[in-house]
């Protein structure tokens, strides 16, 4: 399930990398012309007289087996694009469509290696715009994720240019990947046949990092210092108050593009608090999972002396990543409420502001009758966290 993937790492690193709101698009145009001659898209070795022979030989587009979720992986290597005048873009698109057509009926993943796209070989902006517009819905619907590897300013500029025309749903499928190692969560890198140029570039990128900086997806396992961002958890109404909407969006964008965010530079501590809530709120599946929805909503009917047992069993059935993230979050919130004399955020207050971000129904229409029980569950969890959450179970 998606949250399992999203929550792969410990909480802080997840927050830095996988906020679910992002958008940029790099999709390719499809013409109405039918591909009359079938071909095996998994192989670049087409007979020389095949209409797509001169496209396929560049190995720009490849099919690279299945990803870790059993979805077909289609790879697009920008570095293999020949200079503009040597490539018939129209034909490239037909070839792409021909390749996709064999897979779009089921889910697929598109990985786009951006490195190597230069002013020599990049297609025009207007072409890209038309591309997105002409692209049939069926291609967008079954694409489960688009990974843009080694994004640059160019692609980030595209993001801004295309923002008005990208559908929100599609935007959510787009992920930036700053280092090849991050792809390991999605697909085995060795099966991808990554162009040597891209690998070299990746090594160079890593080498240029300061020795202290870890690649984002392999953060130190030691827990961050308590309250490192919220050293200010003594602030009244922390997690209750809101923050500037524009700034929140700005910070989200920075996280999603892999940029560093330093909350100490920002004046408003509530901004960090809101980002944490927003992150949880915008997960594709809630942290407590749809699986547990009914059990949690009906938790009120559990007799009070067996509540801890029932809650413990429920939570231990969560995917490991969800459990680890929840444990981290709840342990942290318990520290916040320990200061409730000053910050006024008791467990019951925290439950009201966090409950609806931890669980919602599949139809996303939050009903008042469900919020009560969800908040009640959250409050009990906060009250009993020392009994409910295992200290030994680690991610």
């Amino acid at each position, binding site marked *: 399930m998606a949250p399992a993937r999203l929550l792969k790492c410990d909480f802080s690193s997840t927050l830095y990398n996988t906020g679910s709101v992002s958008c940029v698009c790099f999709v390719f145009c499809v013409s109405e012309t039918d591909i009359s001659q079938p071909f095996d898209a998994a192989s670049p070795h087409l007979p020389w007289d095949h209409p797509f022979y001169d496209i396929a030989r560049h190995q720009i587009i490849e099919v690279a087996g299945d990803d870790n979720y059993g979805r077909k992986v289609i790879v697009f290597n920008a570095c293999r694009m020949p200079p503009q005048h040597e490539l018939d873009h129209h034909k490239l698109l037909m070839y792409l469509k021909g390749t996709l057509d064999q897979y779009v009926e089921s889910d697929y993943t598109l990985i786009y290696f951006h490195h190597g796209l230069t002013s020599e070989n990049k297609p025009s902006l207007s072409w890209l715009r038309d591309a997105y517009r002409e692209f049939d819905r069926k291609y967008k619907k079954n694409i489960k994720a688009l990974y843009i590897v080694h994004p640059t300013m160019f692609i980030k500029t595209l993001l801004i240019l295309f923002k008005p025309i990208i559908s929100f749903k599609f935007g959510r499928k787009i992920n930036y990947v700053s280092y090849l190692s991050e792809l390991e969560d999605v697909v085995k890198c060795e099966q991808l046949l990554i162009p040597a140029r891209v690998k070299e570039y990746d090594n160079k990128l890593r080498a240029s990092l300061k020795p202290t900086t870890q690649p984002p997806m392999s953060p130190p396992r030691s827990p961050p210092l308590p309250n490192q961002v919220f050293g200010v958890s003594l602030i009244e109404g922390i997690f209750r*108050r809101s923050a500037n909407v524009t700034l929140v969006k700005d910070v989200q964008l920075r996280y999603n593009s892999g940029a560093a965010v330093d909350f100490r530079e920002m004046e408003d501590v509530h901004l960090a608090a809101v980002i944490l809530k927003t992150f949880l709120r915008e997960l594709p599946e809630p942290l407590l999972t749809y699986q547990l929805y009914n059990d949690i909503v009906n938790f009120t009917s559990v007799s009070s002396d067996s509540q801890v047992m029932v809650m413990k069993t429920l939570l231990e059935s969560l995917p490991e990543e969800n459990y680890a993230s929840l444990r981290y979050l709840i342990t942290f919130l318990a520290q916040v409420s320990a200061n409730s004399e000053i910050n006024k955020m008791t467990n019951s207050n925290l439950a009201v502001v966090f409950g609806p971000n931890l669980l919602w129904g599949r139809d996303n229409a939050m009903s008042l009758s469900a919020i009560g029980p969800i908040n009640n569950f959250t409050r009990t969890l906060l009250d009993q966290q020392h009994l409910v959450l295992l200290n030994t179970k680690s991610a």
Partner: protein
Amino acid sequence: MPEQSNDYRVVVFGAGGVGKSSLVLRFVKGTFRDTYIPTVEDTYRQVISCDKSVCTLQITDTTGSHQFPAMQRLSISKGHAFILVYSITSKQSLEELKPIYQQVLAIKGNVEAIPIMLVGNKSDETQREVETKDGEAQANQWKCAFMETSAKTNHNVTELFQELLNLDKKRNMSLNIDGKRSGKQSRAERLKGKCSVM
């Protein structure tokens, strides 16, 4: 349009901690507690007079801490009148009303016939971030009414609700029943000064 029923529904919106619940509780129960409890959603009912008869004034106190677009849309489509609350101590809280106002506008279409009151609460506070004229300017722009209130000192609270009812031109509503003035109403005699209807 909301169906015609015997209820007159008022919805109170605003960011977390601006005093929505305090205003509503001051109006409904006449009390003020210096407690700090975020709201999920509460609804209060009170009988008022309406067109020579009586009806139920239903006040929905919404949550400011998180947004559920679906729930918010539902409240707006069911509501007859709206109170948009910010705190005069927080410029940000006034900013946060903008998307809510836009939502009301989107759902109700023409807002000129819809009673809306922009309210700057906590007028007793001295750490002011929003000047009265800024609130007035915003109300002007939104073509809605404006008031500053204090739930703590009971400044302009009953007036707020009576003025809101007065804004509805399709009905003739009053907080008084049978012309008998309640205790709260006599307090309403004072302090008319701060209220201005745009």
